[in-house]
């Protein structure tokens, strides 16, 4: 499971919500630029919390499906 994250930094208002909302430490915060950084994209589990809660709607997550890859049989 993974995903591609697209953040339009031109639209980003620097509110930090995405970095706080990420529960798998994928998005970090750049204090100097006051913008998010996609630091560990491979660990994204496409929960969409950052995207849904972004007030300027500048995040797009492209999920890699399926979300499970180990064969149960």
């Amino acid at each position, binding site marked *: *499971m993974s995903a591609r994250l697209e953040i339009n930094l031109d639209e980003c208002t620097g509110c*930090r919500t995405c*970095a*706080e*909302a*990420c*529960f*798998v*430490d994928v998005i*970090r*915060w*750049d*204090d*100097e630029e006051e913008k998010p*950084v996609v*630091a*560990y994209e491979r*660990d994204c*589990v*496409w*929960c*969409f*919390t950052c*995207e*849904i809660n972004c007030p300027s709607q500048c995040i797009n*997550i*492209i*999920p890699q*499906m*399926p*979300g*499970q890859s*180990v*064969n*149960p*049989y």
Partner: protein
Amino acid sequence: MHQHHTADAGAIGQSILSVADCGGKNQRMSEGAENPKTYDTDVLVIGGGFGGLAAAIRIKELAPETAVLLVDKQTIGWGGKANKGAGVLWVLAPGDDIEAFIDFHVKKVGFYLNDQELLYKMARESYGAAQKLAAWGVNVMKTSTGELDIARLPFGWSITAADLDMMRPLRNKAEKLGVELLHKTQVVELLKQEDRITGAVGFSLLNGGFTVINSKATILANGDCDFGVMRMWANACGDGVTAAYNAGAEMRNAEFGNFYDVVNKGTGIPIVFGFNNLYNARGENISARYIRESQPDIPVSIVLGMEKEILEGRGPIYIDMAEFARSSEGRADIFRWDRPHMKALFGHESAKVQAYGPPSAQKVEVSLGFTGELSPVKVDHEMKTTLPGLWAIGDTSYAGSAWAGAAEAPPGGLRGSGLMNALIAALLAAPSVARYSKTVPLPVSGQLEIASLKEKIFAPLKRRNGYSALEAIRSIQEAVVPVKYSMRRNKERIEEALSRVAEVQGKLPELYAEDPHGLGKCHEASCIALCAEIGFRAALARTESRGWHYREDYPQRDDRNWLRWIIVKKVQENMVVATEPVPIERYKVTPGTAGQ
């Protein structure tokens, strides 16, 4: 009063989210690791999810002068599991039949391995607990007259629901009461003086800083082990279970940490209650074939049946979505409530599936999604573990508390029990923790112990290559996910799974990390491996089939020999498996009860 001291003691509660000091790939160990941040507190709550926040709030309500520090490896108010599910809470509401509920739960879900006294307690506390949640500002469903709104279900109980923004009002409430928050800090080990737990150590995911917390009382609320398999539970790696086990706490009911659900094969997303509408490639209704009577949740028989159909060449397996929709109509009132945040999450997920997933169809191919849910920390009726100074609540001790019995816990045979279990466990623990923290002095951690733990915790950062944490996690998943290891068990296959786990464990000393994020993965890999071993060792010991534990070589329930809980414990460096009798003579519902 809360105190914190030493070196560069940062203010607890400040929002620490920065990439500037997160340690670049060339920075092996940050300055912070050399100069630990040390915190002293009356109560340490490890895990800022639903249960941890509820416990912290309740302790401050009961004893406002108590210093409470809440620490989480992600950002409190967003982390945890509660806000990533359906938000359903079961309740025994006025008018529900508690005796019918207990009878059903013991006979059909827990199969006599329940702690029935705790089961009664959970049932009696549930309605008030839901009201308490509403009083804390969580959007719990209400009627037009302001009463708790419920939907009655078969088998004697009801459900209500909360909207999925529930973590934010809880965090706000906690902060208002003076709970101090420490984000992005991964706890690895508990501190111990003689038998008593005296705090914990960990590190900052942001800058790799070493963190030492001295506490009079400690609550583990950092979830169970889901082996990193299911997306939304990716953070539940058994951190707390591992810390408790390594400190010497007893585990109970670990053989029931093997939950499977039916998932859409193309997306991996669970289709809850989809087990009732399954067809094989020949168009035969396999739900009817393998499910003998109505079940409140997915039964073992359909998990085994799905595997059998595949292995015997009658796959793939499908759900008829039109039939599924029709069969769900009776449950429609469960989701009649207006919950904007839940709708936003699931609506968004559906839109993404439409955009990037497999094409929608009436016949959807399904598979089995392993979740695990190993939650074995043994606790008493106040959620005290077997170690003084240590409590465990929520998913950390769901199975270990034993109220659910021989069930995969969570969900414990009842959807909606995970949230209620966490909430009630927090409410039961809080008075006990508040009292205890007044009776013991603030511990002072030993310098030698701290230095040794620091060396151990940061060791992967000193290696530039070796064993990859992601490879370790993948290898453990390959040992726990297959039905042949975790559900259709027999002695040989469990031993085979254990040898696969041991192979991974043998390489764990070679784990390497490039930065604190990678260090976190290394510790998660170690936790996942240990939890797999605990689960398989318990499964090997239970030589019968009961509830969610099925042994192909012992297919019958054996009440003569197995009205016993399996206890797993670390003794010196060995994993010791023992049993403890269920005090069935004290309980109302017994295997001899008429009408079973």
